[in-house]
Structures are given as C-alpha cells and as structure tokens.
C-alpha cells in the first residue's frame, strides 16, 4: 500500500505541525523554570513528555483513520493526538491547564481526551491496550464501522497488560491494531536491557496474530504496513501487532539530563531526523520546492501559534470546579 501525493503531504504537514507544537511547548515549558528548574512552576507545570522524532509513527498510522476510529495513546500523546485530529487549541489549553482545555484542565498533558475524534490516553504504562481492545469489541458487537489503534512504547511491551490484551484481542478476533513505538528507551533503561526478544513484533506469534517490524522510522513504510493491518481489522480479519523503530530526539521528559545515552547517540538521531528526510523525499519524488515547503511550514506555524495563543489567552477555571465532573 503506497500513499498518494496528497497522503504524503498530509503526513508531512502533520509531522511538521506536531514538531512545531512540541518545540513551542518545549520553550514555553521552561518559562518560570529558570534559573532553578522546578516542575511546578511556569505556565506549563508538571511532567512533559515530548514526541520529537516519533511523528512518523503517528502520521503513518493515523493517515488511515477517520474520526470514527478509536485511538488510545500513552503518556507521550501529542504527536498521535495531532495526527488523529484532536482539536489543537483545546489540547494546548489543556496543557496550560485552562478552562477552555479539553477537560477544562482536569486531565493535563498525560490525559488528553477528545471524544469528538475518539482519542484518549493513559499515563500508566501498558494500559492503552485493554481499552483499545474494548472499544474494538464495542464496534464489533454494535456492528458499527471503526477500528481501534492502541499505541504503546517498547518498554510497555514488558507489562502484563500487553500480554493479556493481545491474547484477548486475538481470541475474540477484534478489529484492533497494536502499534509499538520503539524509541529504544524506557526512561533510562534500554530496550536491550529490559526485553528478552529483539523485536517485540516477534511476540505476535504468541497470539497467532501477524507481527510486523518496521525499521528506520520511515513514514512511507509505516503507512504501507499500517494500512494493511488496518484493512485487515476493517475486514474482520482480526488484530495485528506492529513495532516501529523510531527516535526519541528529546529526553524522556523535560529536565532529563540523559546521561545514560551513549556518546554520539543524540547527534546521530538528529542526523536521521525524519522531517528533513521526508522533505528530501518530497523534493525527489514530487519536485517539492523550498517555496512550497516554506508555505507549508508557515501554515503549520500559524496553526500552532494560534493554538498556543488561544491557550495563553484563555482563563483558568474556577478552583472549586475541581469538584465537578467526578460523576456525570
């Protein structure tokens, strides 16, 4: 399955938007946190897990999804949320803890929920998989269209929930795709030090489901393989496990000193940054010009700036509203 030029541009644009978004958050996150770095301070307090470098995993999969489809993501959700079509303004406002945020500021960066596009996530490692399987079950039982995609990190593949949910999805032949973003690290612990198998995709055989390994963080390859998996799911042929080798360009979270990285790793990852790579591909394939690129980047920047401005301009909720929405 190969993407059309339109689809490639859609993927590239969303990668750029996502990267701009993260870079902007990165800058603003540090406001109020210098000279002394205190997580509680500034317009964006709390933990911040950036997705820089992992954009291909988001766009290559979500290019095949529409708003009816379900995505359950992780503690590192921004890139996937953007590719899934989560309202960027409301997401920014949520990250700022504003009244206009997706949940009015109750959830925050690790709890991005947008019911309009069926997007959610959990800050607990491995917990996305069961929820996605259940949403897929719901569609199957209701005979409604729609597939579910669960994102998880390679570190999450050693969590018991992974095993249970994949088995359940396979036994019930659910329309769900499990996408592992292998960025080689679980905080400071390497995949190799924590995982008894080289490719988690090989674990698919333990559930009699197809396992697909995608090297090189390549959006086109991801598009192709994810497309097949999602088609299988839509056709009622059951779940697929995909593992994508991707890059975590930033630290685990903002403030991570990254001393555990081998020398040169960050530089190498910067060299294989998927965004310039994609640009080059567009240039080679479609005579993509600098002017076109500038224009696309300009639009992306506008989108992000507008979202951030919306977040900044929005009011904080009334403190006592903390008591609402526990029950409906």
């Amino acid at each position: 399955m190969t993407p059309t030029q339109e689809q490639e541009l859609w993927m590239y644009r969303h990668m750029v938007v996502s990267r701009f978004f993260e870079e902007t958050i990165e800058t603003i996150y540090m406001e109020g946190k210098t000279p002394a770095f205190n997580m509680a301070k500034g317009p964006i307090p709390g933990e911040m897990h950036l997705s820089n470098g992992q954009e291909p995993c988001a766009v290559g999969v979500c290019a095949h999804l529409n708003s009816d489809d379900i995505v359950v993501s992780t503690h590192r959700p921004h890139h996937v949320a953007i590719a899934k079509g989560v309202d960027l303004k409301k997401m920014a406002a949520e990250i700022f803890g504003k009244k206009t945020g997706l949940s009015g500021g109750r959830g925050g960066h690790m709890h991005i929920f947008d019911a309009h596009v069926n997007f959610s996530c959990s800050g607990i490692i491995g917990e996305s998989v069961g929820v996605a399987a259940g949403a897929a079950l719901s569609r199957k039982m209701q005979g409604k269209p729609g597939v579910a995609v669960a994102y998880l990190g390679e570190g999450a593949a050693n969590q018991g929930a992974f095993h249970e949910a994949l088995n359940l999805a396979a036994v019930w032949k659910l329309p769900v795709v499990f996408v592992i973003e292998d960025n080689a690290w679980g905080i400071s612990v390497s995949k190799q030090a924590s995982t008894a198998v080289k490719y988690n995709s090989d674990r698919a055989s333990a559930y009699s489901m197809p396992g697909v390994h995608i090297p090189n963080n390549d959006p086109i390859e991801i598009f192709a393989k994810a497309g097949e998996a999602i088609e299988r799911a839509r056709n009622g042929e059951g779940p697929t496990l995909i593992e994508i080798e991707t890059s975590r360009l930033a630290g685990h979270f903002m403030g991570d000193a990254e001393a555990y990285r081998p020398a040169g790793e960050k530089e190498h990852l910067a060299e294989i940054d998927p965004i310039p790579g994609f640009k080059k591909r567009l240039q080679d394939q479609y005579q993509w010009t600098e002017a076109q690129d500038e224009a696309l980047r300009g639009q992306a920047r506008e989108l992000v700036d507008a979202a951030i401005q919306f977040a900044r301009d929005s009011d904080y909720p009334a403190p006592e509203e903390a008591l609402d929405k526990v029950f409906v």
Partner: protein
Amino acid sequence: MTQVQAKARKLTIARAMAESIAMEMRTDDKVFVMGEDIGELGGVFGNTRGLYKEFGSERVKDTPISETAFIGAAVGAASDGMKPIVELMFVDFFGVCFDAIYNMMAKNTYFSGGEVNVPMVLMTSTGGGYSDGGQHSQCLHATFAHLPGMKVVAPSNAYDAKGLMTAAIRDPNPVIFMFHKALQGMGWLGTEKDAIVNVPEEVYEVPLGKAAITRTGSDVTIVGITSGVHHGLKAARELEQQGVSAEVVDLRSLVPLDRDTVIQSVRKTGRLIVVDEDYHSYGMTAEIIASVTEAGVPMKAPPQRVAYPDIPIPFTPVMEQWALPSAEKIVKAFAKMKENE
C-alpha cells in the same frame, strides 16, 4: 392474604441479580456481561445463571483469566457507548487488575471533563466464613470506597440486590457491586435466610447512595453493610430480650455514603456500634464513627466497632469463626458501652 402469598416470590440475591441483568439486557442491547465462568456455568456464584441460554455467547462472554484485559476492555467498550457488566470473581483478585479499575474506569470521566462517560458495573463477590483462606475471603469495602470516581454498593438482601443492580446498570457512572458469598443463597456457601426475601417481578430501582433503616429502635444504632446487617439484626433481637431497643441501619451504599441517615439515627439513640466484615483499621467502621463524631452528635458512651481484626484471614474454622463479626460481639459491645456510661 393468600392471594398476596401466592403472588409473593422469594428470591436469593444470586437470582435477583441475574433477573435484574436479564431484564436490562432485554430492553437495552448495549448491556452485556463479561467475566470468568459467567457464561454456560452461570457464574461461580450463580448471579449470571440463565443469561447465556437466553442471550448467547456474544452478549454473555466468558473471558480468559485476564482481568486487566477484560476490565480494561470494559472501560473501552463503556466509553464507546456500551454498558458492560464485568465480574471480578472474588474481590480478593483486585490486586492483579486494579489499575484498570481505579485509574481508568474511575477517573476517565474526570480526565475528559465529563465528555467521556464510563457506564459500567463491576460485580464482585466478597466475604468469608466458609474457610476459603486468606486470598478468597476478604471484603475490602474500604479499599474500593476510599478511592474517588466509582460508586460502591453492596446489598444485604435480594430485594435490594435487584433494585441496586438495576440502578447500577442504568447509572452513567462506574459502579462497584459487591455481593457477599454467604448471602448469595447458594446452598453450598451456607445461606442467610433473611437475605432471601420477596422480590417484585417488575423492574425497579433502589437508589444508589441511600441507606435503609432495617429496624427501628431508640437505645442504640447498629450500622452495617451486607453480612454486618444480619449480625446487627440478630443482635437487635437478642438485645430486645434484655429490653434494649436497637435500630439497625443498612448502608447499602459505601459511595455515595448516606451520612445523614446514620447521623440522624445516632442523634435519636445516642449510641453507635459499627459492624464490618472488612478489616478493622482504616476502614468503614472508622469512617462512620468519624462522620458521626465530626457532626457533633452527643453520644452517651464512646462508639464501638465490631470489625475483622487486622490479620490475614485464617483458613481453619476455629480461627476464622472466632475472628468474624457476630451478633454476640455486638451484644458484648453494647454491654461495654453501658459500663462506660
């Protein structure tokens, strides 16, 4: 009268639960059941008996022994418009799957600012007294009730069981439905006769969060839930022999907790005994005593708790029966209270 008796229909809690679920499944195709051995077997404790036959394996789904997966799946299905009823066979097993329950089921509504509802029921068996050992006999009332975002109910009789289950299934929020094994009316677990009561054939709700005054009295308030209520009623009968009039309050619901009903009762009686088969410390008994105390209700003597000691539940009957709450212990507690007056 004979008419009424003819109409009168006593059910066990197990049957009342199954009947409520069946009635909701008939009228609402979003309702379905998942769990271990809840299909053809009808549930180890009988509360899904008949459902598999009537609704089939699509809506009454046996699961692998994967609580984290199928409870997580219930959260996902509920968020997508279904109304799952999942069974955690023994509450004691919560430790393998509690994240899906307390961090997702209970919090996703809040995290989504109310945009995502999680209308599901988690039913789970509680309680001991039949020598099933320390990993199959617990109540864990406070373990669930302490954490925000989930309602927690637990019936003491079949009438409440049907009505609470109906209300739980219809509630747009997640509800934990705890049923005590010794009250299920499964002969093989022993049977508390008083739990088997008349149950209307028509559908009805018992509101979540309202306690019931099961017996009115003027000298002492005995507060309990599930098995504790029955110990309280037996104690009340014994106390009556001594000329003591005991009021028995059945909480029925731990979350929301009907503090008003308890407080009003103690205002009237001036004495409080709280009974719980869950562990003594940091439990329901402390919450009730603290709530009444905070309210500044004058008491003639310090309140008393009759709860499970802070020990793992022993297997051998001589130890387990000795450790369990009982009518006798409640009567003793009352006597102790009188001494202190």
